[in-house]
């Protein structure tokens, strides 16, 4: 008899989703101003199991912009894209690569 509705509705010990443990492997999406009204988007910290080259190829085609991969001594490989692609990139990462949204941090104005 599952009729006591207000008891079955809420499990206080269930995972609430907002776990206290903060992910340390954030993906940072930043924007930098170039000359004039031109900008540059950098995507830092994409997990190693993804092939950056392939991602970049798709991104370039989808956003109709140029881009490249820069190797940094401390931060590993970083994707650079021309123009302000921050929102589009985060959308791509969440929908196509199934990365959790809380791991993605968008910086800049």
């Amino acid at each position, binding site marked *: 008899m*599952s*009729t006591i*509705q*207000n008891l079955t509705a809420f499990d206080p010990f269930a995972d609430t989703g907002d776990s206290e443990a903060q992910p340390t492997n954030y993906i*940072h999406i*930043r*924007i*930098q*101003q*170039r*000359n004039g*009204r031109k900008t*540059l988007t*950098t995507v*830092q910290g994409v997990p*190693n*199991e*993804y*092939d*950056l*080259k*392939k*991602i970049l*190829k*798709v991104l370039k085609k*989808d956003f109709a912009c140029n881009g490249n991969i*820069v190797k*940094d001594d401390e*931060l590993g490989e*970083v994707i*650079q894209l021309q123009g302000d692609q921050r*929102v589009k990139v*985060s*959308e791509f990462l*969440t*929908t*196509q*690569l199934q990365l959790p949204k809380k791991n993605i941090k968008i*910086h*800049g*104005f």
Partner: protein
Amino acid sequence: MSDLGFDPSLKKKKKSKKTDESGESPAPESEGTPAVEDELFSGLKKKKKKSTKAFEMSPTPGEEDLSSSFDDLTLKKKKKKKSTKTTADDFEQQLEEAGIEEVPAEATEEDGNVSSGGFTYEELLSRFFTILKTNNPELAGDRSGPKFRIPPPICQREGSKKTLFANVQEIATVLQRNPEHLIQFLFAELGTSGSIDGEKRLVLKGKFQPKQMESVLRRYIIEYVTCKTCKSMNTELKRESANRLHFLSCKACGSTRSVSSIKTGFQAQIGRRKKM
């Protein structure tokens, strides 16, 4: 560069999905922050509105509680009558029925009880809040006091490539933060550098609109100023010398939480390359 775990079908997927997904995601992106932001900055623009709003808002939860408890009451009655027939699915319908049929009757009863005292619940509640507000407004949730009003950022263009952020100092004092910390955050977030001029104004390299500065400031406030537990902005940032971590301690509720340090992250090479 390895193909480890990378789904080769990724590209195709993207193509096929592209059409139907293009319209979906951008909207939720911007939903999360504005609510919080508006709360934060409401002091700037619609100060008067806010106080009244808070006042109007507060009675509603109480009312809802009441009505929901009514529902519970009615539910129990219903169940006893029909419990032989019911399944879990029918229950929803019954709930609606019960809500329509029996609540009015009880409500009138309840009204009778209250009006015998001369006041309705709402009248009493509003009376309580007006009294509370006049006597000690802080308890009434009226946070639009002078302390939490953040002046809007003033941005002027200096030359063609630099921006003057005139009231950093003022904003930092309102937020009770070290201006240096705020400036460091601004540099990291905007990906630029800059300096402080003679009148303690901040000169940023690059062109920035006040609106953009405001959004960055909001992020700073959410990250480094507001208390996560009580949403108060009356907080203090302390640096623990032992472990070199920053801690945010709330002056209102006394809770502390650790705060990540400001990291600049990757800076792309812009303009002329370094000379080898």
